[in-house]
């Protein structure tokens, strides 16, 4: 069924379709619409699961972890200060290998206060052991939640699907809502091998020796690494069932490109148009969208950018004292590439500022004109 939906409601549809029995959440702008929609459906009976209204995001995540360990699918949605408050429990979720799925609506972190789109909230959580997806639009957010369950439940790691505040969360677009039978076919019922068993009581998160701690982390890293391959496979299965696929990265007009603009999230949509126009003008330019951020698709990125001359990475985030986070990751991924391209870090859209076609074109042209390496992040301001 095709409907005109906000990104938030698209996410809510995905959660409903995945037959998630336990949703524990705490409202926060701009995510609240997800919470409200699911609550509404709980009341009407459309949602088969239970909404647990917790007193904080920290408790919401703790509840999800506990419920997940009883062997059920769980979901929470949050944003900004909410995910910051959850931080401790994010580590627990990954450490307990609980395949919790969360939607995070990217909103700037205080201070100062604001509600606008910025990826720093989820990117600050990159080392917590969560799989992270960044979505371009509502449709992708819906599809990514369904895919996230399928991936997370194979590797026993939690997964986060990020969509930007307002640009995705509140903008209404036509969205295909899959049929329940399709989703049921795609996503099998959850069957965790390690669920709590009252006949065999266990004590979770025991104190362990240094060696054992290292072993758990090592095992988790192996699992995390395997996600890159599994995510590709799951995306292909998804395409087969639903006719749509995204890949873990998406190369756009890259074949003969010398210059590449790299984006994530909603800026990609705008960039697609700018790149198309620049191509028409004869520029050898392409676009690379990064959808999977954790694990970082190093090999896929290396391959996609092989032989490119210059890269401009646009980051709607700033790691103070370093630069754009996507750019850091990308530079690290390319460090051993032969004839590696010059990589420039552009900071645009921080705090929800608009990244217009003009801004992207300005960046593209600037990359074209640059000849020397430049390490510092380059802030792009409106005229």
């Amino acid at each position, binding site marked *: 069924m095709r409907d005109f939906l906000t990104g938030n409601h698209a996410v809510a549809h995905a959660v409903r379709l995945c037959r998630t029995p336990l949703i524990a959440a705490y409202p926060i702008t701009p995510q609240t619409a997800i919470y409200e929609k699911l609550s509404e459906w709980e009341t009407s009976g459309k949602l088969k699961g239970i909404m647990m209204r917790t007193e904080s995001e920290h408790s919401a995540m703790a509840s999800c972890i506990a419920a997940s*360990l009883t062997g059920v699918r769980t979901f929470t949605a949050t944003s900004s200060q909410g995910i910051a408050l959850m931080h401790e429990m994010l580590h627990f979720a990954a*450490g*307990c*290998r609980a395949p919790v799925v969360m939607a995070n609506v990217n909103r700037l972190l205080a201070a100062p206060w604001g509600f606008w789109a910025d990826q720093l909230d989820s990117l600050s959580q990159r080392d917590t052991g969560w799989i992270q997806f960044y979505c371009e639009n509502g449709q992708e957010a819906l599809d990514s939640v369904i895919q996230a369950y399928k991936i997370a439940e194979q*590797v*026993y790691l939690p997964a986060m699907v990020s969509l930007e505040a307002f640009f995705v969360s509140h903008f209404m677009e036509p969205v295909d809502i899959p049929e329940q039978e399709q989703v049921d076919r795609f996503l099998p019922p959850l069957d965790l*091998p*390690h669920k709590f068993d009252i006949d*065999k*009581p*266990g*004590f*979770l*998160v*025991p104190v*362990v020796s240094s060696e054992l701690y290292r*072993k*758990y982390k090592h*095992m*988790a890293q*192996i*699992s995390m690494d395997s996600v890159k391959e599994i995510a590709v496979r799951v995306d292909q299965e998804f395409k087969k069932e639903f006719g749509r696929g995204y890949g873990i990265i998406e190369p756009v007009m890259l074949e003969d490109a010398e210059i590449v603009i790299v984006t994530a999230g909603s800026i990609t949509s705008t960039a697609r148009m700018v790149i198309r126009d620049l191509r028409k003008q004869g520029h050898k330019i392409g676009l690379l969208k990064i959808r999977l951020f954790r694990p970082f698709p190093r090999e896929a990125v290396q391959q996609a950018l092989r032989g490119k001359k210059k890269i401009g990475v646009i980051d709607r985030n700033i790691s103070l004292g370093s630069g754009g986070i996507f750019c850091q990751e990308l530079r690290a991924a390319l460090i051993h590439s032969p004839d590696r391209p010059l990589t420039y870090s552009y900071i645009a859209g921080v705090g929800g500022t608009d990244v217009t076609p003009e801004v992207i074109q300005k960046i593209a042209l600037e990359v074209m004109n640059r000849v020397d390496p430049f390490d510092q992040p380059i802030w792009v301001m409106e005229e």
Partner: protein
Amino acid sequence: MKNPDHANEFVIPISYGSTEVIETGKWGFQKPQTVFMTAPCQETCPAGNPIPQFLYFATQGKYDEALRTLLRENPFPGVCGRVCFHPCEIDCNRSQYDESVSIKAVERYVFDATSDHLPDILPITNTDSKQVAVVGSGPAGLSCAYFLALLGHKVTIIEAQKEPGGVMRWGIPQYRLPKSVLKKEIQRIFNLPIEIKTGIKVGEDLSFDELTRFDVVFLSPGAGLNASLFIDGEDLKRVRKGGDFLERLNSKEKVILGKETIVIGGGNTAMDVARSALRLGSKVTVAYRRTRAQMLAIPDEIVEAEEEGARFEFLIQPVKINLLKNKRLAVKFQRMRLSDLDQSGRPKAIPVKGKFFTLEADHLITAVGEQVDLSWIPQELIKNGLINVDSSSMIFAGGDAVDQPRTIVTAISVGKKAAISIDLRLRGESLDKVFSKIKVGNKGSVSMESYLSGRDEGKWPEPKGVILYDRINTLYFEASKKINMRKLGFDQRLRGFSEVSCGLSSEEASLSASRCFSCGTCNYCYNCYFFCPEGVISLDPLHQTKYVDFDHCKGCGTCAKSCPRNVVEMKEVS
């Protein structure tokens, strides 16, 4: 998930072993300890009734346990649940929070709910059992006999009347204390090996000296003589004595009164007489020489008498009674006024010079006090019109015949103290030393349970302190109303001698009992259990046990802070 590199290991950090091997309890420097205390209700109860404990069982609907708990300290829960002046409810800590707990009403309910069967009460094994004579079988005598029997002594009661019970049998009217209730209480007492000889009057059928064949004698003859007004006309036929009047009613004799009756007095007997007279169809005027504030009757009784139509005239005293030609009485009254305080702390009533007036009535009943018949008591045991025994002899005394407040529960209490004193005297122990250990608070009550707990070894623990309101953690309680017993309507009351108080329903009883703060004791509210972050507390309400796993208690003190009754104390350990 099985990790591919570690095929047999799960990746989830879970331990199926026990963490108990880590003795976290050794980290602490303090440990919780339950320190039970005496609730003020129990301290104030002359009989030392274990009130929080019996209410705890009542809350659970365990009325047999509640009854047995009461019977440890008081053989008359059915009587006290009806006629006691319940000072416990005045001192109830809850009265400082919202309203006191209906202790008396629940006590009555416990008796009523269990009255279809008799509980097993067994005396202790006493290899050194002695013979004790108890003279008189009122509340003091029966209480003394009951506790002596529990202590394994052989008791013989000598009763002048044809049935036991004293004032409970012959004084208190049926509408306050139905005889069936008293009968059941007495039946339960006589399930113990107690012998009774009725219709035997010491001094007539048996000489005082003959009592000396017993090892010990307890004198509790009561105050059966009606005090006199000492005025002209007191011997007229239509002038009666209150005690005799009530005794005739309680003997089911036909008693007829005229249309109007004057009752003289302000105590419980006066109220009993007035309300009985109302039930016989007479209009009643109560004449009292002081004011309402000085009346000795239980306040509830005064209120109920008023509700039933008794008229009160204060500050008057009869000086002369004349018989009129129409056979009615003309009673001349002297107007009185209040003056200085007397020895009992009440203001004296003194005549207002020259102020007299006359009231007419068909009958006049006096209820101005009771006196002790001392005709058969040796002179050396008499002091100020009362029995006064030597503290070192084998003759003990109690009840209304000695110098003590004349209430049922005081008599019960004195009976218990006498039983313990007798047992101690027979064992050659110091009374003062033991009484200082088995006391219940500081208002004179003692605990038979405490006495029994140390009797075998002759060693008693220190008495518990009294827990006051400020120690109660009231945040854990919700305000609620006191539930009072329903009463018969006024019309119904005056139609006969049916019991006025209707008692509580089972829901009301359980609700009333559950209002108890359980001051100073544990009622298994599970607060400590739920709040303990270490999960080291085990409670077993069924066996009334509490257990703390000290190997794993870190001594955080959460249990102490969360106890609504503050009976958990943290004690430092080295």
